[in-house]
């Protein structure tokens, strides 16, 4: 699987962030960029889109996010260190449906790498687990590709 990296258009996380933010790109499709654009363009998901961008900008400027309402790691022991951004508004305690999966690359560049996404429905743990599994698969492939390039 190809795991190139691209920038998220127009996303600015600060002049000197802890992490740069990238999205996985297979040469044709970036699931993360596609999701952000879909949320942005959907009036019902606009608030979710804004909160996901806020979560990304927040995560890019701290070592690790402590607020589990905004970033949650997978609790499945089969997974490596993979996380999801959640559309959550602390001011109103409102939780949206948008979720964007990611992992950290701590090796050289200090990257947050966004992989896949989903729109949460009530009680669909299976979807979340599957999406974490996919994110973990992207992580493994990305690391394998990196090793083989060296």
């Amino acid at each position, binding site marked *: *699987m190809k795991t190139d990296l691209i920038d998220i258009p127009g996303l*600015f996380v600060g002049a000197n962030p802890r992490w740069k933010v990238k999205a996985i790109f297979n040469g*044709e*499709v970036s*699931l993360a*960029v596609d999701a952000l654009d879909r949320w942005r363009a959907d009036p019902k998901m606009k608030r979710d889109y804004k909160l996901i961008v806020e979560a990304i*900008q*927040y995560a890019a400027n*701290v070592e690790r996010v402590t607020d589990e309402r905004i970033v949650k790691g997978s609790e499945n022991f089969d997974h490596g260190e993979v996380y999801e951004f959640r559309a959550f508004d602390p001011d109103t305690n409102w939780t949206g449906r948008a979720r964007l999966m990611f992992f950290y690359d701590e090796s050289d560049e200090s990257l947050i790498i966004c992989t896949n996404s989903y729109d949460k429905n009530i009680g669909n743990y299976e979807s979340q*687990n599957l999406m974490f599994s996919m994110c973990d698969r992207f992580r493994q492939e990305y690391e394998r590709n990196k090793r083989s390039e060296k």
Partner: protein
Amino acid sequence: MKQDDISREIEALFKNARPLSKIDLEGLAEANRALSRDPKHIAGVIKAVFVNDVVSSMKKQGISKSQLADQMGYTRQYLTALLSRQDPRNFTIDTVVKLSMAVGLRPECIRLEPMEDISAQAIIIREKPSAETSSGQNYTQTSTLQSPKKDVVEEYALAA
């Protein structure tokens, strides 16, 4: 779930997603840039980063919420509300500075960049270097505010 199944699911996701060439990338870029020009949005990022630094420092030093509340003269409920960002009005600059110092952090400056950089700068809180503080130097180092940016500074400070 088996690895093959996951691969199939990923393939399906790729198949159903739009290729980059079919996405309005400029529209997305402009929307992202617009968020970075939105004071409310930037204030949200700043508060999140600030609270994160405070909570991380509390964990590192084993300071409980009750201890911190006592030290600051707050009730535990008020501190909890503050740290969970339930009331945006609580985030005054005075509170930010007081809370930072209470957990051994030094609010270094509010970093300001020209708007053309579409900056989403957070208040940068760094650990207080012990040598510096013990030598009696100032805890708080504020940035020099250059006149053309002053209105922007004040707006962000109020929003934060």
